């Protein structure tokens, strides 16, 4: 039982749990879309005074902010009580490809080359994380949603715009990985 909890979860079980969360939120009368929180936080911080996009009743989105706090706690619980300390179980091919870009074999969930404080202290390391975040934030709002809102909720409802967005996610991801990575790393 303990090993079932501490080892990484299979794709089918994980997919089942994620869709359960989507249905749970629908049952609560809400919809599953995480990046809406970014807009809500901007609004709560007073951005609505200067930019009309953030001038909305953000308090109606409090439930999603609570969900966000839960997600942080969930990450903490998983790391503290449900981890056997093993690194991400990626394929040998990926390990080899990433080694060519200068990434060592995984030792945890994230590469030290990007997410260690020492990496952050190099100007380049900071720029990479900042630019990555900037594009995710800008792109998710421009596209009207992120992985949860478009790929999961939107595709489940057979929404064509969500399919367009997911195709965009993949074009962008493939472009970054296969074309730009060799110039960045």
């Amino acid at each position, binding site marked *: 039982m303990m090993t079932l909890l501490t080892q990484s979860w299979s794709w089918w079980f994980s997919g089942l749990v994620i869709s359960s969360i989507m249905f749970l939120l629908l049952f609560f009368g809400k919809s599953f879309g995480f990046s809406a929180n970014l807009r809500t936080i901007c609004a709560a911080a007073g951005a609505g005074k200067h930019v009309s996009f953030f001038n909305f009743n953000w308090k109606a989105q409090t439930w999603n902010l609570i969900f966000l706090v839960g997600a942080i706690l969930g990450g903490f619980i998983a790391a503290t009580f449900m981890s056997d300390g093993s690194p991400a179980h990626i394929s040998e091919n990926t390990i080899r490809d990433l080694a060519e870009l200068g990434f060592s074999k995984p030792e945890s969930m994230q590469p030290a080359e990007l997410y260690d404080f020492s990496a952050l202290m190099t100007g380049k390391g900071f720029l990479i994380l900042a630019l990555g975040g900037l594009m*995710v934030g800008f792109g998710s709002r*421009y596209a009207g949603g992120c992985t949860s809102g478009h790929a999961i909720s939107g595709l489940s*409802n057979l929404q064509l715009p969500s399919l367009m967005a997911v195709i965009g*996610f993949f074009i962008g991801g493939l472009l970054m990985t*296969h074309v730009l990575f060799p110039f960045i790393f």
Partner: protein
Amino acid sequence: MKVLKYLLAGIVFGIVMAKSEAISWYRIQEMFRFQAFHMYGIIGVAVILGMIGVFLIKKFKIRDYHGNPILFHPKDRSIPRYLIGGVIFGMGWALSGACPGPMVVNIGYGFLTMTIVFLFALVGTYLYGVVKSKLPH
């Protein structure tokens, strides 16, 4: 209870993101290199079960726990915003290895430098709000 149910749903979300390794930059790289089925399996199962469930909700007009009908709000029909926005999002996703949900899960997991990514995601969202009217939608 009002607050608790969303908190619990968030906790389960955080745990499944972490335990499925979907929070890992390595897993996102593996996905964009088509070197494992894992991430496709996760999203695929979630979407297939989601489609079946949404179909059943509509067919049997299932209501939420307040007794209100469960409604789905179709997005506006357009191509540029979804495609261009999507491409920008995808580039950031591959670079940082995290979409918005996993960003905060990573912070809870102990990767505190992910806070930088999250803060700049807020900046990116703000910038979108500023230039929104000048962009093709």
